[in-house]
């Protein structure tokens, strides 16, 4: 397929792998945190780790919107659909995430709640238009990539005078998460992350500029990387070079999409409709100041939290689930006692096992019990 196959070319991959083997200093290790679930997915789906030398390893970051949403917010969504009787529109991944008391949106749906799986907020708008007698709520999650469509939908709803549509806003911000991870790492010394592969789609919106502060303050290279396997490998090579040369700046591997300033039009739209929350709870990171967005007062009619006054109290994660440490990059999925025993994608305990972008799900789906690779006979 044009414009896709080029980024999955085996010969180029072999060339990059050779360069990495050549340039990686065997006397040290390189722990590279890939921020996004999209990167994690590419690494596993294409077997990128197989192509790396032993001293280059990936630490999986928190960039999976489903994974970082705390249980309390899912309880809120359940409350909206069950107690307020709304039509709740959600992305498919969200449906299976366990909330407190082993409830989930999927279970609520089976019990009769009106929960619809949609592929975009536009579908939710459509459902609201077609069902004027129903209160339709969109369960908005995601980093800066999904934020502009939410802003556009709210503006559309206002322009159309749509009275039965609102958004349960859970949008979170990447730079705040990076800062929290680096801050934790500095404090506890529990994790050694040498460099970051920065978000690709998020950066197409916010640009590469917001990372400059972190690269400088925490002295870690940040290389913004696309989601294709060759992107990940090239960005890894760029990070290794920076580390070898003792540099720590923001570099942009994903130049075909990302600029330093990002998509200013989208940023303006978002700023018009949404504003910073003073603090927001993240799974794995706890309360992080200025790390999420809420709907501005001017658009309060479309804010499901205000419209329905959700009251559920946040609750704690399942005991012995290591999702929080995994999201901080301190542990690998296989370090968790629940991984593959009680917690599998069929019966997920933690959020990292639910989303296909979660580190645990990727480990389980693509990587478990891997045997040494042997060449296939001509097939």
């Amino acid at each position, binding site marked *: 397929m044009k414009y896709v196959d080029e980024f*999955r070319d085996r010969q180029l991959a072999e060339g990059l792998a050779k360069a990495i083997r050549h340039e990686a200093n065997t006397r040290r290790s390189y722990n590279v945190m890939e921020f996004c679930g999209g990167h994690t997915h590419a690494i596993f*789906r294409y077997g990128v780790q197989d192509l790396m030398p032993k001293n280059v390893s990936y630490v999986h970051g928190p960039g999976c919107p489903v994974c970082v949403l705390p249980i309390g917010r899912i309880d809120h969504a359940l409350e909206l659909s069950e107690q307020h009787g709304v039509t709740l529109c959600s992305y*498919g991944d969200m449906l299976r995430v366990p909330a407190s008391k082993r409830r989930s949106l999927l279970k609520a749906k089976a019990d009769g709640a009106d929960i619809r799986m949609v592929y975009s907020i536009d579908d939710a708008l459509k459902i609201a238009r077609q069902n004027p007698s129903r209160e339709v709520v969109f369960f908005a999650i995601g980093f800066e990539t999904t934020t502009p469509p939410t802003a556009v939908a709210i503006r559309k709803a206002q322009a159309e005078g749509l009275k039965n549509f609102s958004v349960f806003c859970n949008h979170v911000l990447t730079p705040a998460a990076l800062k929290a991870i680096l801050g934790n790492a500095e404090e506890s010394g529990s994790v050694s992350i040498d460099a970051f592969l920065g978000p690709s789609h998020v950066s197409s919106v916010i640009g590469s500029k917001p990372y400059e502060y972190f690269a400088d303050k925490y002295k870690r290279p940040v290389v913004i990387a696309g989601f294709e396997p060759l992107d990940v490998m090239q960005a890894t090579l760029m990070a290794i070079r920076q580390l070898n040369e003792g540099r720590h700046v923001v570099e942009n591997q994903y130049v075909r999409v990302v600029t330093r300033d990002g998509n200013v039009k989208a940023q303006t739209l978002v700023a018009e409709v949404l504003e910073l929350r003073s603090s927001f709870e993240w799974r794995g990171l706890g309360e992080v100041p200025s790390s999420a967005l809420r709907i501005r007062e001017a658009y309060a009619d479309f804010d499901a939290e205000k419209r329905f006054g959700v009251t559920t109290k946040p609750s704690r994660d399942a005991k012995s689930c290591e999702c929080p440490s995994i999201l901080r990059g301190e542990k690998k999925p296989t370090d968790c006692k629940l991984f593959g025993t009680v917690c599998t994608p069929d019966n997920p305990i933690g959020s990292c096992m639910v989303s296909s972008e979660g580190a645990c799900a990727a480990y389980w789906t693509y990587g478990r019990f891997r*045997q040494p*690779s042997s060449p296939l006979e001509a097939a």
Partner: protein
Amino acid sequence: MTVIEARFAKADACLGGAVEMIHGSGGRATAELVRNLFHRHLGNAFLAQGNDQAAFDIGAGRLVMTTDAHVIAPLFFPGGDIGSLAVHGTINDVAMAGARPLYLSAAFVLEEGFPLADLDRIVASMARASREAGVPVVTGDTKVVEKGKGDGVFITTTGIGLVPEGVHISGDRACPGDAILVSGTLGDHGIAVLSKRENLSFETEIVSDSAALHGLVADMVAAVPTIHCLRDPTRGGLGSTLNEIAQQSRVGMRLAESAIPFKPDVVAACELLGLDPLYIANEGKLTAICEKGDAGRLLAAMRAHPLGRDAAIIGEVVADVHAFVQMQTRFGGNRMVDWLLGDPLPRIC
């Protein structure tokens, strides 16, 4: 036909109406629906007898029997509909034992209010599929459920067939060293159906591959009577089907991603939707496992048949106590090909 009968016949034949509860009452309206709609399309000597069962002679040999409930949304999709699907799906399940399908039965659950014109289209399509396959529907049943208690129409078909002497095809017969083949491009059906989903419509030229595979299977069995396993990768796609066989046979599998045939449109749609084409449903494809030494002959027989033109050898069976299916990626790395997990998509077959 009496005057009254003719009036009923006319009323139903105009097909302007909808299914009503009375059509399932077992009374005259049921009889009229059966005669004027089902028999009109599916008619054959067995149905014409008007009995509640069909009686027939069969030759000597091993008999296979299978049943399949068909529920699909939307009912009509590019390349087929629930009617043709109900015929092809069951014929294929019979054929995957290496058998020659003989007869089908069909049971319809209709929802009150379902347009008779749509039912007519579905039954006509079923009849066409059955005629083309040479496998008649010889007995059937119809029930009607109240509005809101069904989804338009559900069709359950049962099929029987005869296995030729010396053919022993079963999912537990894969052995280390065997070759794994597929009959053509994968994922066409699932993507064709998805493209017409209400909340997900997108433009694509892809049509369902829905087809009866017994002709292809007959040619394959003639070329290599010792085929070990045959299965049609329907729901769950090739990934799940190979995991089933690996479990049944207690073996592992190693696939080469670059050898697996996909249509570029299917790959593009999967990219867009975040799906893995290995888990997308097929309705006119099969996967076969045979001894390595027979693989070339089997591949040639498959490619010589119109439904196997794009057949390919995609991997090999290996010894593995974990019964894992693994794949060398096009990129040069390795990955697991696990069972389809959960059901990320609304139902598609």
